[in-house]
């Protein structure tokens, strides 16, 4: 005999059991949401600091230019304004993470400079060897030729207030550098006579690198380890670049640059076969064109 009221009771029990996981999940979700809202409203600073510690998710492909960006350039022929070519810089990673972004400063080709002792040594030294014999004193700054007047962005003079630079200034010396800018007008060049050139836009001091390593040890982000690997490679510390490239690859095998740095480091360490094997396996797995190119270079002996 059909007893519908009794059946309804049984259904209610069944329905409750069926929906219980959903209820529990909803309740837990609501609690988490409520707590988050509470923390956000009562202690926004904590939340903001937590949020700000998260690095951007973009995978940074560092510029693997071996030669550092020249800081003081003397160009006799003012036709090609190559000094104004903007190069991708990894320092923006710094700036982002330290929450001090000054985009305009980063974009300015020649602006104020903060030069560390080491950098001054490194970067002025080759200049001394150059034929033009650039003088270190600003007084001897020759005027640029007035003929070359291609339209250019005016150098924006902004104060180097980024935290990065702040850290650097602790050990840095502000050096007035003679700037020979072929594309500047007389007026502009006059202005730049006493300006400071930011040296080492793409370079990283040891302290900065250590800072990145610390952050990497804390956060284990592949972007950071790749950055470190690149920097070590640039510095010629191939053992370390090998190590960090390998770490990067282990953290995220999709980052192609990690394999390239890894292979390059192996080559530099004299492990050519290992590098070739690694690249071959990687090409087989991903079909990477860059890896193929590198492998070809290695095979032909054109890789340096």
């Amino acid at each position, binding site marked *: 005999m*059909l007893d*519908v009221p009794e*059946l309804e009771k*049984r259904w209610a*029990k*069944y329905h409750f*059991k069926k929906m219980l996981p959903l209820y529990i999940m909803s309740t837990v979700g609501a609690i988490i949401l409520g707590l988050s809202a509470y923390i956000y409203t009562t202690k926004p600073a904590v939340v903001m600091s937590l949020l700000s510690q998260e690095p951007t998710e973009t995978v940074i492909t560092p510029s693997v230019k071996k030669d550092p960006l020249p800081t003081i350039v003397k160009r006799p022929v003012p036709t090609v304004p190559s000094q104004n070519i903007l190069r991708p810089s990894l320092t923006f990673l710094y700036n982002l993470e330290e929450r001090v972004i000054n985009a305009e400063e980063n974009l300015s080709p020649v602006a104020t400079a903060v030069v560390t002792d080491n950098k001054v040594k490194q970067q002025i030294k080759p200049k001394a060897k150059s034929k033009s014999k650039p003088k270190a004193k600003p007084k001897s700054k020759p005027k640029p030729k007035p003929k070359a007047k291609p339209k250019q962005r005016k150098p924006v003079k902004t104060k180097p207030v980024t935290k990065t630079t702040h850290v650097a200034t602790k050990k840095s010396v502000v050096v007035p550098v003679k700037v020979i800018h072929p594309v500047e007008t007389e007026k502009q060049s006059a202005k730049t006579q006493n300006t400071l050139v930011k040296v080492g836009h793409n370079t990283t001091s040891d302290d900065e690198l250590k800072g990145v390593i610390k952050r990497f040890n804390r956060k284990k982000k592949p972007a950071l380890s790749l950055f470190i690997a690149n920097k070590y490679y640039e510095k010629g510390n191939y053992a370390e670049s090998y190590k960090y490239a390998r770490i990067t690859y282990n953290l995220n095998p999709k980052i192609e640059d990690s394999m390239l740095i890894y292979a390059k480091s192996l080559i530099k360490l004299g492990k050519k076969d290992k590098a070739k094997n690694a690249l071959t396996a990687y090409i087989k797995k991903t079909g990477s064109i860059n890896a193929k190119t590198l492998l070809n270079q290695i095979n032909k002996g054109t890789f340096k």
Partner: protein
Amino acid sequence: MKSSKIFHNSKEVFQDIVDSKDYVQLDRSMAIYHALKEAIQKPLKMILVFGKPGTGKSMMLNKLYKELSPKQKVVYIQTPVIDESEFFKVLAYEVFRFNTPDALNFTQFMEIANHFEVEVTPIVILDEAQLYSESLMEKIRLISDSRKIKFIFALHKTQKEDLIAKEHFQTRIWESQELQNATASELTVYIQKKLLRANFFDLANMFTEKSVRHIHQFTDGNYRDTNKLLYGLFEICSWYEDNAPSKVKFNAIPTKLIEMAAIHTGFIDA
């Protein structure tokens, strides 16, 4: 039909009765049916129809029987006759119209069979063939070898492997057709066709794909189980129609009622 009485007679549609008139033609089952009819025309000794209980074997055989019987001699033994003597007596009477009050053994039956000459080989459909004993099956094999009778067996899928494994059947079952449970879309067609055939147009529209999917969850597309669930469902609907009409919807079948029917019929253990 008035909507207030919509559920009262509808449950009868889903009574589990094997009647070829109620056979719902679905694409897949019709393909199997035609294949079976073609197999009968071939000079095969035995034909096997197998599938899980409730997949429509009996219904299909019933339809086959109804369709073929006007054209040729067809005997449909729905309930297995386990006793050998009784089986041969039934067979002798149904096929050759030979009646005897005495017991009949295999040799006697073969003599009777040889005595009668038939133009078209009679067909004997044996439903629930898994219930026949092995010795009787062996004798049935010998009868089919003599080409005096063509047998169609219907049995549960679980027994099929055992049957095929037996050597003497491996060479003799030359045609086999498997029936399977309905998919959700097939079940929708099945339910709607059944209701439409009984002129329950409003009810047929109430079974949307969503509600049939829900039913399919419980019955897995088994026709017998579906009939059972729907019978229970319409019983519940009828109760609401009589006692709490405000709770009855006439545009869709509520999930609650389907689940209640599933509890009532034992598909949900609650």
